[in-house]
């Protein structure tokens, strides 16, 4: 459980940055080299590499090991954990919508009674 929590920390920290979310979105379309990822950002190579390291540490991307051409690919497993974590709060919304349904019915009934 504690290990899961640590992993979520890393994942959320990695996602808490607009540049890194954009890099992930780009990789969701297919692998890309560090240079290709940096091209639209007009950002220095060290700056983009720093973001890639953060994403890599969170397990969100995997960088190939071939010396010259080291494409990055996305790994969605940590995102599934984020999704699962969010899902545990889903019932709260469902209960609220149920209450809203009941209240709307009640209002409609009252209106009919008054007519």
């Amino acid at each position, binding site marked *: 459980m504690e290990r899961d929590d640590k992993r979520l920390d890393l994942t959320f920290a990695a996602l808490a940055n607009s540049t890194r979310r954009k890099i992930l979105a*780009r990789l969701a*379309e297919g692998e890309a080299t560090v240079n290709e990822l*940096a091209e*639209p*950002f*007009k*950002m220095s190579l060290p700056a983009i590499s720093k973001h890639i390291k953060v994403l890599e540490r969170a397990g969100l991307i995997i960088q190939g090991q071939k010396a010259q051409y080291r494409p990055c690919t996305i790994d969605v497993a940590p995102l599934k954990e984020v999704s699962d974590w969010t899902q545990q709060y889903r019932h709260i919304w469902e209960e609220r919508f149920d209450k809203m349904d009941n209240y709307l019915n009640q209002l409609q009934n009252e209106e009919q009674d008054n007519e």
Partner: protein
Amino acid sequence: MSDARVSENAIVIERTFDAPVNLVWQLWTDPEHFKQWYGPTGFTIPVAEMDLQVGGKRLICMASPDGKMKMWTTGEFTEINPTSRLAYTESMSDENGNIMDMGGDYPTTTTVIVELTEEDGRTKMTMTHEGVPADSPGASGWNQAFEKLAEYAGTLQNNE
């Protein structure tokens, strides 16, 4: 044909286009034309709004090939001398043009300066992007865009 000169905190690209200066000016300042060439290979420009006057606002959206990644930039024109010199500021923003702080990776505001001169019906362009490190991959992003510009200028002239 293309030459990225080294200046520490600016990308400088010189390029000559086989097109008259009036056309190259339009490709930079008419949003419908700008959409056809701006961005690296495969990227598209779903939104380009430009109020072409000094102090006039710009809002550009650049999208990755499948559209999963969208990048918005905003800014304003700072110099407009048709057809020789154009300058505008650029900042990362949201879709409403609210400037976003990129957390020190990137200066909040950079400046793009375009200088054009015509020689024998061809146009020599010098593009300077101040605030972006010369060795950044952004230079190849720009060069890819200028490849698209050259090709688009060619198709426009053939259709005439």
